[in-house]
């Protein structure tokens, strides 16, 4: 079976990089597109970092040569004919997405909002309202303040980006997790902006990650 790393445009060469479990990586032409695969007797992506980075490093190596659509981790398919059929079915859409991300990279921004900075002043129990109402008021006020902090971070960064998305985050409401599709030429400026925001906004600690392949902007699904 074939493990799929990414889809790229028609290209002659494949970078010298090994894939999952050290397997050789090769190109499978599919119309205007090319799928990058490695062959395995059987493969199931393990729950360790080695497999994650093996997948990631193949995709990153491809970024040298132009736009890359990374596949979701763990994508496997039977053989080359099946690759051509599956990619061919969505050729127009995938080619269009490739064009959309050409010349850009994805940057991640994580911000942890200081809980103390969004804690509302204790107004005590208001007359006529029980502790339940007071709790709800406090919670809404906290969410509202956290949203305001997030806006302060997100708005200027979105302006420096081609596209942006707030990624779903899990659990903690005080963590903002954004993705930005940024022109390669604007990456340094974007990073500088993140540092400035981090210094200027006392209520949050902000970190920029990447550049990543455009994972967030490769899927059809809306992320925001």
């Amino acid at each position: 079976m074939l493990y799929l790393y990414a889809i790229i445009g028609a290209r002659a060469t494949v970078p010298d990089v090994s894939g999952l479990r050290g397997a050789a990586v090769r190109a499978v032409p599919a119309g205007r597109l090319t799928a990058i695969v490695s062959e395995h007797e059987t493969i199931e992506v393990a729950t360790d970092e080695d497999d994650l980075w093996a997948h990631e490093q193949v995709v990153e190596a491809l970024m040298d040569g132009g736009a890359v659509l990374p596949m979701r981790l763990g994508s496997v398919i039977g053989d080359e004919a099946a690759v051509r059929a599956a990619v061919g079915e969505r050729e127009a859409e995938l080619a269009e997405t490739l064009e959309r991300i050409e010349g850009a990279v994805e940057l991640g921004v994580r911000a942890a909002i200081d809980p103390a900075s969004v804690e509302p002043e204790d107004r005590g129990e208001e007359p006529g309202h029980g502790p339940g109402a007071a709790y709800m008021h406090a919670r809404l006020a906290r969410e509202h303040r956290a949203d305001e902090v997030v806006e302060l971070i997100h708005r200027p960064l979105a302006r420096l980006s081609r596209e942006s998305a707030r990624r779903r985050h899990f659990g903690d409401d005080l963590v903002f997790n954004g993705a930005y599709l940024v022109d390669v030429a604007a990456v340094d400026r974007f990073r500088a902006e993140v540092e400035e925001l981090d210094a200027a906004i006392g209520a949050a600690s902000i970190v920029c990650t990447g550049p990543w392949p455009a994972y967030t902007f490769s899927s059809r699904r809306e992320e925001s």
Partner: protein
Amino acid sequence: MNVGSRRSESAAGRRPPVKRDVRRTRELGEPPRRRRREQSLARARQAREASLLDLIDRLLDGGVVIHGDITLAVADVDLVYVGLRAIVASVESVQPQLGSSLEARPG
């Protein structure tokens, strides 16, 4: 700008020594009142943790999904997800979130 080669360098540098360095994501929220040295160490750690978390988020939740003959050969995405996040977050900070993490994932 040659993004690709900068990527590989940063990828190598980014790869965190996770097992020896189990930290809480919660520490990201500490108020910024520390000495400069402590602060820069904390920032480096923060960046490492954020990179690993961002990689996990993107690999398991982003990327092209093609239905049909392509299947996802990851043991159990939810378990992988929770397991990997547990590497960077301490057990006590992850566990109260498990319920909402699983609920939040699409079926």
